């Protein structure tokens, strides 16, 4: 199966009609405190930028759970490893907030591995990749035991337990550097480049192999601790020809109506807890059921006690397999993501108690359903030498719906380890490549462009405009062809006429500019994939195609950059590897 979809079937008249609805939103988006276009008041001299070069066999980008194991396992397999992070080891991305980790123990578990995989597959309605589902369960206990040794379960904060294995192995960690570009030479990976947030320095990392552990991303939504995640890894890999999947799926987390942006408060005391183990417990959660309910019933939408949504008589909406019906779990609240179980005492997860609002994790899909397309069970991408693990890999480990509680953190650990070992093996077969100065200059120009502009759009304003276009319930969650086409027209406008005119006055704003660029491309991917998938399944819901279409859609959608530079989409049958 290899169907391309160009999404250009819209007449001009149609566009004008539908765009009106979104025009208001775009205007709303610009109502923040930010000014849009303006002079670049930079005090930096881009001519005085410094350059720093690093070299290793394996470069691990990202310092969460996946990055930790990727670095440790690649080192243990004999590679020279460097880890680079936009934030700090164990203190950026989603890892610091994930407090539940799944461990499958074949000795104590009531279900065997085959049954476990089968059950996840049933809940996931075929969207999961059973190879990765099984791999996660198989290796989870070993990774958990290593974490135990490092003191992971004794600490609320993860920096210290993460530093331990890194220090023991003397693996250098370079923090507060945003990687923006992957470098490809002769058809395979040659390194990565980015800039420091603290000094005016461009960093080039030469490596035989790169593992993206860059996590997922969103539209800097309010209420979820993912405002540092903007699908950076996915977008830079897409730019050098990697295939990307899963953009049509959604994570349907609601937030609290009161102070929706306060994710700490919204999660009760979750962020202050030490991590805990979870065992087999398979759900069909965090889809867009609540979004549908709010869409049909209007506001204010109050979440009653668990299970009460069944009492509200409402027809249609996302389909939930009977086996995983909420009725069977009466008295048990829906499970938050990453195995973040509701706190035992005090506090409630977002949406539980009080009025709810939607879109707290807007722009993010179900964990591990979006990211680079793996070509095998080794977390390898279609670019030789480029690997991804955790939320940066579209492994479909859990499927396109939240299934096993706590599997997200466990899966990141397991995949990190697998990718680390695979990358180390790969390094033994290749030589370090030379990166030509011409190429480096090109990349440097691209990185610094927003700093060099004398005037331009502020990234914060463009981000707010994008949020206004993408986050509404009737665009991102309860999908319809017309509105998605309209939103896409807006996003393409941002892509063509704002993305090339983003300005940055300092290194912080340079980071925002690149993040904004990544969000715009992600938004385009999300809309195009959602328009292409003309059915409803798991966390993707189309009001105009509300049924599951097993005839045409037993398939994932891959996105890649065509030879002409255009975004291309294709189908890949469930249970198959890319051809």
């Amino acid at each position, binding site marked *: 199966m290899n169907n391309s979809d160009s999404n250009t079937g819209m007449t001009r008249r149609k566009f004008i009609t539908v765009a009106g609805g979104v025009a208001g939103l775009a205007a709303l988006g610009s109502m923040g405190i*930010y000014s849009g276009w303006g002079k670049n008041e930079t005090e930096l001299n881009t001519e005085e930028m410094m350059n720093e070069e690093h070299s290793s066999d394996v470069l691990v980008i990202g310092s969460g759970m996946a990055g930790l194991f990727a670095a440790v396992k690649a080192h243990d397999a004999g590679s020279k490893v460097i880890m680079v992070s936009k934030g700090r080891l164990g203190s950026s991305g989603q890892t610091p907030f994930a407090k539940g980790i799944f461990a499958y123990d074949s000795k104590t578990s009531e279900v065997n591995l085959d049954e476990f995989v089968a059950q996840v597959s049933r809940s996931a309605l075929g969207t999961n990749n059973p190879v990765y589902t099984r791999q996660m369960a198989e290796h989870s206990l070993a990774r958990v035991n290593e974490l135990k040794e490092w003191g992971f379960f004794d600490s609320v904060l993860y920096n210290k337990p993460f530093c331990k294995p890194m220090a023991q192995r003397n693996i250098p960690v370079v923090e*507060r550097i945003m990687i923006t570009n992957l470098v490809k030479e002769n058809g395979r990976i040659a390194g990565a480049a980015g800039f420091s947030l603290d000094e005016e320095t461009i960093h080039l990392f030469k490596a035989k192999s790169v593992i993206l552990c860059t996590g997922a991303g969103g539209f800097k939504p309010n209420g979820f601790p*993912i405002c540092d995640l903007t699908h950076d890894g996915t977008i830079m890999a897409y730019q050098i020809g990697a295939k990307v999947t899963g953009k049509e799926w959604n994570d349907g987390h609601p937030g609290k109506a009161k102070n929706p*942006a306060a994710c700490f*408060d919204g999660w009760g005391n979750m962020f202050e807890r030490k991590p805990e183990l979870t065992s087999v417990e398979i759900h069909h959660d965090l889809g867009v059921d609540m*979004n549908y309910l709010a869409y049909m019933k209007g506001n204010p939408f109050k979440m009653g006690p668990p299970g009460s949504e069944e009492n509200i008589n409402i027809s249609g909406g996302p389909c939930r397999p009977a086996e995983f019906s909420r009725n069977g779990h009466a008295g048990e609240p829906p499970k938050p993501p990453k195995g973040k179980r509701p706190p035992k005492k005090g506090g409630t997860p977002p949406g539980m108690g009080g009025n709810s609002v939607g879109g707290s994790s807007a722009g993010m899909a179900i964990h591990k359903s979006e990211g680079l397309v793996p070509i095998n069970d080794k977390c390898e991408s279609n670019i030789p030498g480029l690997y991804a693990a955790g939320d940066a890999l579209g492994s479909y480990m859990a499927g396109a719906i939240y299934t096993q509680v706590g599997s997200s953190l466990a899966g990141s650990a397991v995949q990190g380890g697998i990718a680390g070992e695979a990358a180390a093996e790969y390094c033994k077969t290749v030589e370090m490549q030379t990166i030509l100065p011409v190429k480096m200059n090109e990349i440097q120009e691209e990185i610094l462009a927003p700093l060099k502009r004398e005037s331009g759009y502020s990234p914060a304003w463009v981000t707010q405009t994008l949020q206004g276009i993408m986050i509404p*319930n009737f665009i991102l969650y309860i999908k319809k062809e017309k509105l998605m086409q309209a939103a896409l027209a807006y996003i393409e406008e941002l892509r063509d006429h704002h993305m090339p005119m983003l300005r940055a006055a300092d290194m912080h704003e340079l980071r925002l500019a690149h993040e904004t660029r990544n969000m715009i491309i992600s938004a385009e991917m999300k809309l195009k994939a959602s328009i292409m998938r003309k059915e409803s399944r798991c966390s993707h819901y189309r009001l105009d195609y509300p049924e599951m279409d097993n005839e045409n859609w037993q398939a994932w959608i891959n996105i890649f950059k065509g030879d002409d530079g255009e975004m291309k989409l294709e189908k890949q049958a469930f249970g198959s590897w890319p051809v």
Partner: protein
Amino acid sequence: MSIEKINGCIGCGTCVKTCPTDVIRLDPKSGKAIIKYPADCQICHLCRMYCPVDAITISPEKSIRVIVSWG
């Protein structure tokens, strides 16, 4: 508004490194942490939890307009 105050900062720089969204910087003159980019605060409290002298106060309100899906 999100991260509000830093009182009694010793300038160790832990919060600067710890903030996922790069909100805090050390003031080059005083050597102490300042809230340089408050609009980007995601109210996750990591800086507060990592601060060795418990100097950081955070409130649940956001300083910029909050965009949600409904409500």
